[in-house]
């Protein structure tokens, strides 16, 4: 037999506050992550779309060419929020793990890690003037430019 609930008014009010606080926290977290990341390539790049896996492989140096075109990934200076967001959502590693990965890779195989710039505007400008350039910005930072082309959105 189902027993009736006998919460006291004080307990019920506390419970409602708890639920409300949790909801606000979760909503806030959701809002913070709501900003989409947009992956862009040089307008002349021979690709129309990229999958998250393909973008991950590019920023890990596993994929370095589109046909005969050398891919040039562009990242941000250490500690940039958008960089850490990208590493978390696309590469699925922390910044330190990512940097350690590149130390090992360069030592073992040679090659060069993604170039580092300071701002979204610099990413867009560098990708725009670099054949094979690939970068990422928040959706609100994208703006209108003919030199780059959007190939992926990451929620």
């Amino acid at each position, binding site marked *: 037999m189902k027993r009736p609930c006998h919460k006291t008014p004080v307990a019920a009010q506390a419970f409602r506050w708890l639920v409300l606080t949790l909801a606000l926290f979760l909503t806030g977290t959701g809002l913070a992550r709501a900003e989409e990341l947009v992956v862009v390539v040089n307008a002349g790049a021979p690709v129309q779309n990229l999958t998250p896996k393909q973008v991950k492989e590019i920023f890990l140096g*596993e*994929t*370095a*060419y589109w*046909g*005969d*075109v*050398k891919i040039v990934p562009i990242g941000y200076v250490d500690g940039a929020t958008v960089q850490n967001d990208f590493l978390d959502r696309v590469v699925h590693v922390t910044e*330190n*793990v990512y*940097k*350690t990965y590149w*130390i*090992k890779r*360069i*030592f*073992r195989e*040679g*090659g*060069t890690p993604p170039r580092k710039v300071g701002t979204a505007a610099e990413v867009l400008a560098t990708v725009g003037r670099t054949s*094979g350039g690939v970068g990422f910005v928040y959706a609100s930072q994208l703006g209108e430019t003919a030199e780059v082309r959007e190939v992926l959105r990451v929620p």
Partner: protein
Amino acid sequence: MRTGMWRAGLALLAWLAVLATAPGARAFELNGFGDITATDSEANNNAPSNNGVALGQLAFYLAEQLSDHLDVLAEYVIESPGEGFVVDLERLQVGYAFNNNHKLRAGRFHNLLGYWNLAYHHGAHLQTTIGRPFFLEFEDENGVIPVHMVGLWWDSRLNTSAGRVSLGVMAGNGASINGDPTAVAVGTVNTTELNPDSAGDSDNDKAVSARLAFNPAAVPGLGIGISGQFGTVNITNIDTDADGTVNAADQVDQTIAVLDLEYITDALEVLGEYYAWMNDSSQVASFDDSSAYYVQAGYQFAHKVTPYARYESLEAKANDPYFIAVGMTMPGLDRQKNITTVGVRYDLHYRAALKFEVRAVDDDMDGSYNEAGVQWSFSF
């Protein structure tokens, strides 16, 4: 001589620094590894490294993309052989990438044998433990495999739904071992090191090494590889047949076969390699094959603390002329050497770590003894 090499190394670094900061200079990063290691050993072999603090190898390496398809990698190591410092050009390679899957390199490389040699090599900070398995030591530190090769390196890979298949093939100068008849007494342990013949081949027989590896997609972090080397080792002025006189020349046709297995995740590391040497001498009629292996495991807690353990073992067969020539055994001695290591690594930062370990050594030639070591390793 060593002072001169030291100055040459400093001059090289100064030149690189100027090059990197010059207006309009191409951008490249000069990176490196280093370590300071303290050891307390009960070994009774009077080695200066038994007790005290030693500077480890200071390795500088730089990689540069010269064009869309061309790249170059150079690595210098400054180290102390016990007195003063020397500068060694460890690697110099230029590569041409045809596409994502095929690349050709020329120069001096880390040999493709096994996993450890390519993965860690001079990067003490990259490896969990303080040192390499003893049978994988460098040629100038009583190593028994040619850890370097000079020649060509073809590298291919194939990505399939089942996983990644990688194939590397190297061809280059065969190694040699050149004894000094005036310095080495017949019937004692030879102290001459294995020479990868970087400045030219001392014989006309080239060495070929290859490694085939598979990383299954279903088990991320798992890798299995088989590798080997075929070549002729030219040995001069060493009593390889143990008849009491130095042989002017002995040619050992050598096959090294290696099986490696590794499972590496964010926290767990399990490594294992098995080596077998099949040597065919022009001076010694018959002897058994020598072999070695290690297994190592570690688990990292909270991205900082990694307890680890390793067991390594080598069996150098009596009368194996190659192992006599590299000084790993002496005539008539089936040498078995085992080392059990237990330690803990503490990562202060992703570029610096402290390692503490104890080792129990059981050796037919040097006896049984214990060691303790502390290392501060770093990268920059």
